């Protein structure tokens, strides 16, 4: 599974729509759309500063999601996911979020909602599958806990750090264990930059997602297209 993360509504609605549709049209398997939150604690400087800019300009959840809906109508085969922090979904309402967008989303990625807190949101009516995380420090019981996930994939955070970190990915078998246990693809994220990184992740875990390098180019559409093109 090949996927890209882009910041919703950034740098403006038109440019976001172009980037969103470019990823879909290029035939990648999934897109991760960020709904900006003012406290992006899991994000490194590049994504955090894009998010801050988006927040300063005003975040319109309905507008972002209506652009995702339009994209899904044109490219129904791509899986759409939303990446946002817990306060956004809780504030919008777990049930309302599910009712309004459940039909177009394959999953939600909530970086400040660890597996053990999933039921806090599902009990409040979040019915869209929550994509679980596995990390280099996950213990057996942590991976066991995601065994029955209904999400389309498991998200493997390959480094100890924030998005866009230049640390080397950890070499251990956590992703393999997760893959076997869940029989779901495992998508490696955080720190994937080059075609080589991506191929390594595809071979090792069955998927990758790139954020920082894409967000960096979200303001320059031709650079954006050129960058994602190499992963086709």
């Amino acid at each position, binding site marked *: 599974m090949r996927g890209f993360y882009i910041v919703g509504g950034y740098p403006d609605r038109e440019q976001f729509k172009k980037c969103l549709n470019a990823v879909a049209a290029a035939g990648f398997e999934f897109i991760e759309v960020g709904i900006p939150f*003012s406290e992006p604690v*899991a994000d490194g400087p590049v994504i955090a500063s894009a998010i801050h800019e988006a927040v300063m300009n005003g975040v319109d*959840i309905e507008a972002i999601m209506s652009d995702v809906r339009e994209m899904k109508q044109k490219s129904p085969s791509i899986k759409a996911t939303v990446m946002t922090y*817990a*306060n956004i979904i809780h*504030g919008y309402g777990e049930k309302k979020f599910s009712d309004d967008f459940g039909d177009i989303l394959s999953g939600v990625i909530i970086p400040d909602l660890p597996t053990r807190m999933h039921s806090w949101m599902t009990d409040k009516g979040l019915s869209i599958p929550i994509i679980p995380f596995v990390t280099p420090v996950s213990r057996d019981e*942590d991976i066991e806990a995601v065994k029955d996930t209904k999400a389309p994939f498991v998200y493997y955070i390959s480094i*100890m*750090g924030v998005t866009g970190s230049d640390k080397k990915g950890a070499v251990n078998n956590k992703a393999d264990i997760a893959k076997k246990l869940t029989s779901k693809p495992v998508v490696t994220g955080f720190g994937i930059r080059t075609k080589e990184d991506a191929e390594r992740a595809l071979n090792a875990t069955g998927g990758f997602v790139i954020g920082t390098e894409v967000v960096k180019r979200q303001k320059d559409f031709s650079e954006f297209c050129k960058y994602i093109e190499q992963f086709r």
Partner: protein
Amino acid sequence: MDKKMFFGEYGGQFVPETLIPALDELEFWYNKLKKDDKFKAELDTLLRSYAGRPTPVYKAENLSRELGCELYLKREDLMHTGAHKVNNTLGQALVTKYMGKNRVIAETGAGQHGVASATAAALFGMECTVFMGEVDARRQEPNVKRMELLGAEVVRVQDGQRTLKDATNAALREWVASVETTHYIIGSIVGPYPFPEMVAYFQSVIGIEANAQCKELGFDPDCVVACVGGGSNAIGIFQGFLDNQKIEIFGVEAGGVSDKDGEHARTIGMGKPGILHGAFSYLVQTPQFQVADVHSISAGLDYPGIGPAHAALNDSGRVKYGYVRDDEALNAFKMLTRKEGIIPALESSHALAYVIENKEQFKGKKVLVNLSGRGDKDMAAILERGLI
């Protein structure tokens, strides 16, 4: 989901998955050590011989006359490093030692928690990095110097509003990257479980001590008052009195200059439940669920969130949460300085200001105010701005 992580419906562990093993490790050690006699004796000795416990309860006669009540001050301002913060940092540094980690990080607003962390780190021979918003670093410059003198690295955070919230974001990011060797000494009863419970435990010494001291003086207070940012000094003193339903308890938030957006830090008064820095609690937020800008003259109260224990105490009605404005806090600062010869921190001035502004309500009553810190750190900013 485990109920133990919550105060009523507030609390939880809203953090990246990467931190979960470290939080479990911390919970394990905290639960083990708080029952461990050797640990408790070690901490008690430090608090007494190094940090200056017990702090006195002082009857402020001059102000009492002025206000028409009996005003007692719990003198946490006399603690080593100038505030209650060191109760917690010594406790957590000792936990860090038992966990076998040799580096600590901390966030700071007013700089008091940063100084207290740097102090504990120096004492225990640990590496220390403190994250401080650029705006706070400027308004509390003496504390930056103190931290650096103590051997800590001070990172001036340039994100967002460049205050306590942003410093906390930066500390959390750093912790995710270094969690295997580093302990994060959170400075208030905020953050993911077990931090709110653990910090409250280390601060409970204030209330337990104050309760015993009042009894020794032959009374129970009618009212207990403390300022609330994240809420550690408040929960510290409240814990000594919550069980006695006859005692009225007040938490005082920073009212800033007005109730307009961005001009106050009234988390309970103006916020609604939301998720920030690992916990579900009250939160000042925009209609679009973004964390809102806040303002207070006092860097330690300039925070859009509040500890989950306070959210629960508010909802249950056990504690009343009010506010005072910047100028009222300044007035209290001046009054205590001139009438009693005690220069209070701007944070603690809020608690005192609440009693001054509502003196009719407190008339004839025995009022215990937690004087959580001293005001040396604030003098430069106050004089520079010509506020007094």
